[in-house]
């Protein structure tokens, strides 16, 4: 199950500067494990104490995973996973 993961500027030190990387998995947790295998150190930036970091937002095909099961959110082949830091709007 291949998915495309978009990496924010602040985390690209882990991907050698790549904006977008491939990963695999059928849940977000598996995708993050796959990212960790290829780009060591990413997992600890994204996950704190078993849940997503408070200031990290993750979207599967533009839908926030926090409303779709969090780390257990389903991911399917060809999906786009977008990681963004939480910033202010308004």
């Amino acid at each position, binding site marked *: 199950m291949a998915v495309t993961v978009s990496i924010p500027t*602040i985390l690209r030190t882990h991907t050698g500067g790549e904006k977008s990387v491939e990963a695999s998995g059928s849940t977000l947790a598996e995708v993050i494990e796959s990212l960790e295998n290829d780009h060591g150190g990413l997992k600890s930036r994204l996950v704190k104490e078993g849940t997503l*970091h408070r*200031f*990290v937002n993750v979207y599967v095909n533009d839908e*926030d995973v926090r409303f779709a099961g969090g780390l257990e959110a389903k991911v399917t082949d060809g999906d786009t996973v977008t990681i963004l830091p939480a*910033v202010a*709007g308004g």
Partner: protein
Amino acid sequence: MARYASLLDALGDTPLVGLPRLSPAENVRLWAKLEDRNPTGSIKDRPAQKMIEAAEQDGRLRPGCTILEPTSGNTGISLAMAAKLKGYGLVCVMPENTSEERKQLLQAYGARIVYSPAEGGSNEAVRRAKELAKQNADWVMLYQYGNPDNARAHYEGTGPEILRDLPTVTHFVAGLGTTGTLVGVGRYLREQKPEVQIVAAEPRYGELVYGLRNLEEGFVPELYDPDVLTGRYSVGSYDALRRTRQLLESEGIFAGISTGAILHAALAVADKAAAAGKTADVVFVVADAGWKYLSTGAYSGTIDEAAARLDGHLWA
């Protein structure tokens, strides 16, 4: 009755209009809440007025006071009008990457603008405003990101208006910035109709705006209550522009760019309802009209060109 004692009294009671051409099915209908029909042309007139009135009542705001606020534009314009009529000064801390029209409007109303750097977007404006508040103890920061009167304006105003005009409402979709609209309307509707869906449309900007030094500088507004929401979409500038133009072409509504993002999420939930064979009345917010964004080129040329011009701008 459409006669008011002053412009400030003409707040709210905005039209809710059906969108027969964009609605995906006969029993899945889209409705636009026209918040551009407020005194300064945006939904922010509601929280601005409520926050000022509450601060007057509890004695924080007295004649001659100066108000301080971090804002990417609309809240500043709303506060500037009210401040002018009520005799307050206003200092707005605004990211430099906002539209030219917003700056000119604020200046026309006599507000003082302190610019914050484009990198980091509104995060930097919030940080700078908090610094200024410490340095100027006599200024009154209303702080829309954490002021319960922001959400209360929608709990007492926008929400009841929607239910009064459309008792069959099943979904409410609005932009996620301070989170005041979603939390306020969402709480009210949830109390009245527990099964209602509350959906956020969050603008996804160019990379510049996410240029934090570290993740700990991230920001979640103090008002945010994720328990009120049932879904949250991230919408990029291309989809926001595409929907903004579609709203004008199909239904004649000339809206700002953030409304395009909100419509994008509204259509996503409407399509889901239609595919599931459900009946739905989806209300979404038209946060402001398009006038303030003409200089960004949002309405001319190809969508790709317009999206490229918006890169790095705070368009919501």
